[in-house]
């Protein structure tokens, strides 16, 4: 479990930081919402859900 969480950590480190985020420099819109906004919050949410699943499933 610790290793999976470490992997999620690394994923977050890469996905929520510069090189990846700079891809959204241009004005890109999805349903009238800026792509960067959607990307940041989606990645964040997915990381959380993923870690919740890794942790809580061990108990059941």
């Amino acid at each position: 479990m610790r290793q999976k969480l470490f992997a999620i950590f690394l994923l977050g480190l890469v996905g929520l930081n510069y090189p990846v985020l700079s891809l959204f420099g241009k004005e890109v819109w999805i349903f009238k919402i800026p792509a960067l906004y959607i990307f940041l919050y989606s990645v964040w949410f997915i990381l959380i859900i993923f870690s919740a699943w890794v942790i809580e499933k061990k108990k059941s």
Partner: protein
Amino acid sequence: MTTNLGLLSVSLAYLGLLFGIAYYADWRRAKGRSLINNPSIYALSMAVYCTGWTFYGSVGKAASDGFMFLPIYLGPTLFAFLWIPVLRKIIRISKRYSLTSIADFISSRYGKDPILGGVVALVAVLGILPYISLQLKAIGTSFQLIVLPSEDLLTDNLPVFPFLQEETLYITLILIAFTILFGVRSLDATERHEGMVAAVAFESLVKLFAFLMVGFFVVYWMYDGIGDLFSNAANRADLSELWNFNSKPGAYEEWLLLGLLSMLAFLMLPRQFQVSVVENVDEEHVNRAVWLFPLYLFLINLFVLPIALAGRLYFLDAQVDGDTFVLTLPLAAGNTTLVWIVFVGGLSATTSMIVVETVALSTMLSNSLIMPLLINTGIVKAGASTAVDRLLLNIRRGSVALILFASYFYFQNVIGTQALVSIGLVSFLAVAQFAPALLGGIYWKNGTRLGALTGIIVGCSVWAYTLPFSQLIDTGLFSTSIMSEGLFNISWLRPHQLFGLETMTPVAQATFWSLILNISCYFGVSLFTRQNALERGQANLFVDESRYSTDLQRQYLWRGTATSEELGDLLQRFLGAPRTKKVLKDFAHQKGLNPSIVWQADAELVHYAETLLSGAIGSVSARIMISSVVKEEPLNMEEVMEMLDATQQVIAYSQQLEEKSKQLEKASSELSEANQRLKELDELKDEFIATITHELRTPLTSIRAFSEIIHDSRELNVEQRKEFLAIIIKESERLTRMINQILDSEKLASGRMEWHMDQVDLKEIVEATLSSMSQLMRDKKIEVQIKLEKIPMHVFGDQDRLTQVLMNLIGNAIKFCPEKKGLIRIKLKSLGSQLELRIEDNGIGIKADDQARIFDKFQQLTPRDGKPTGTGLGLSISKSIIEHHQGSIGLAADSENGAIFCITLPLK
């Protein structure tokens, strides 16, 4: 929108509610039914991370710098994924040695060093003062806005400095009372405050709720959804940079550095250490917090940017401070309910921070700064007998008041117009300087005291020069030429462009330099300095904490003499008489000693006493006190290493011994099992031989008899001879069959049977068997009723063996059927994944008592006409065969009047 009175009543009512919750939680704890022993509450209490900075300041930052408000929440989110190894280790160490603050933790790790402890405490207090002040600023501003008449909101009349000082002062006083009441009531060795934690968890929910309400209001009431909001914003050129990552120079670095800063500062904030480590009830709770806390951060940040944009759009000429949008937007829209909700939310966010932070800081101040000073200057004498417990408590309370008044002063005179987030980041960087020493301390044994001290001092100096110092320049205390030309006119000593870094924001470059220098000094100096014996020992206890988790393994690095009475007197000075008595009694009880006599204290008692004292006065002072009582013999390095090594060896040996004895046990139990089986087999063999010889003799007797007759008699005619020979043949066949059965039974039992498994149709086998026995059935005039399902019944099995089973069962049925009235019914049908075969006869049936035994070896039943025939092995062989096919065979319930055999087999 309202009056001073309205404002005060709501605030007091809310604080009263918090008092109530805290009181209730403490009451529950006293009853033994803790309210907060729950992982979700633990996670919520960690949300004290989100203060007035988050509630008000984030929107302000977003309104000017776009997404740059976000990294300080992403940092802790990422760090959370590492909590299970890191945070749990810190919790374990802290609980084990009663370390109740960051200063205590760090000083304990580096040899219980008082200087390090004092430095950390001082930096923490000075660094966090601005942070507490910003909360007061947020409260003050929200007061001011709420009592403003609505017309004034949109004009330029917003007073810049909060003028409602009296209200803020009232709140400060009330908070001092609250903090003392729920945070400093007694000197609990564990320093846990359940009431405070409950109140904080509740406030976390309130502030989240309030913020989400504003978010929904702005997005779905003021606009038609997020898309609509952004479209409106897109029309303003000056706003578009807020949601993009412009390639503004310094943006990259700032994002990364702020993220890194928040990751490191997270645990180093005194309030976070307090709720995550000191107040932790159960280590397991951390697991839930790993994802629940980031989820909280996610939710509270969802609407920040939309609210900021809405504010910028609404208050066109940017005269309204972004830090106030959360309140001014509902005010301007006239939504009174929402305004009150936001106000209470803001109150939650700020007061929870103030209370927890102050409790943590007062602990550090009194344990790591004041207490050692008192001991050092002889005001509190080690080795004296004056009771100090009241004094300690009052020192703690005094610290609370001191810290809060100082913050109030800072708020009144220094803060001015700075943005909330900027103020907060300064505090972040201050406490982040502890990170290398603390994190290095639990993973690197070679980190030395000097290394830690150097790192912290250097890092703090850089911090102080770049951030607070520049603020002091702004207030006019120092010449502004220092900012533009650098100290002593050296250009690379300019506070905001230190060492020539031109492109970063002040905070970013301060972060960069202070941390780089801190870490380098920590590692560099540690590598070149040596540790003393105590430091080495402590380093081992911290880094290898898993090896020292039981009493046996723990090495009490102490050698000396003391009596229980001396220790008792010492404890009494600081903990009070009743508690000391109880503690000593429990300890004696556990050891089987008589508590009323004085006994020679061993290392365990001394350690125990020291741990208790640490909780009350800090590990450094505790150590000093204990050494004063105990006539100690100092250990040198070799002795320490020897003791540590010896323990490790003892542990290794004892583990090996355990292994061996386990193996021995296993072997001996296997042996006794084998013995048992041998005995059973022996009995079985005897039984077998007895039965077999008897059974085999019968046909042999017939064969011999008739052979003799044929041999001896001269007067037999052809007919008679033929008849007798037929009998001989029949009996020989019978004998052969018996012997075959015996062989089969033996092969089945020993697993040496050869199976030829294939896909076979049971229906065909049934039909084939029936037809082969049809003559026999006709002879006995037995009627046969067959009911086979039309579909083929494929099983994976051995055709010959299955046939054998059927012949056995049908043969039995024939044997036991009444003459001339016999009826055999055979039914074959499928049941889902299995098939069921029933063979019924109307014979004498099988008595209930016998039913269990018939499948055993050598069991025979008496048929209608005469003596039992056969070896009694038939059914047991059938059973073995069926079980080998993964099926089952048994008697149906109503078998007392005519046997009903029931076989199930898995269908292929």
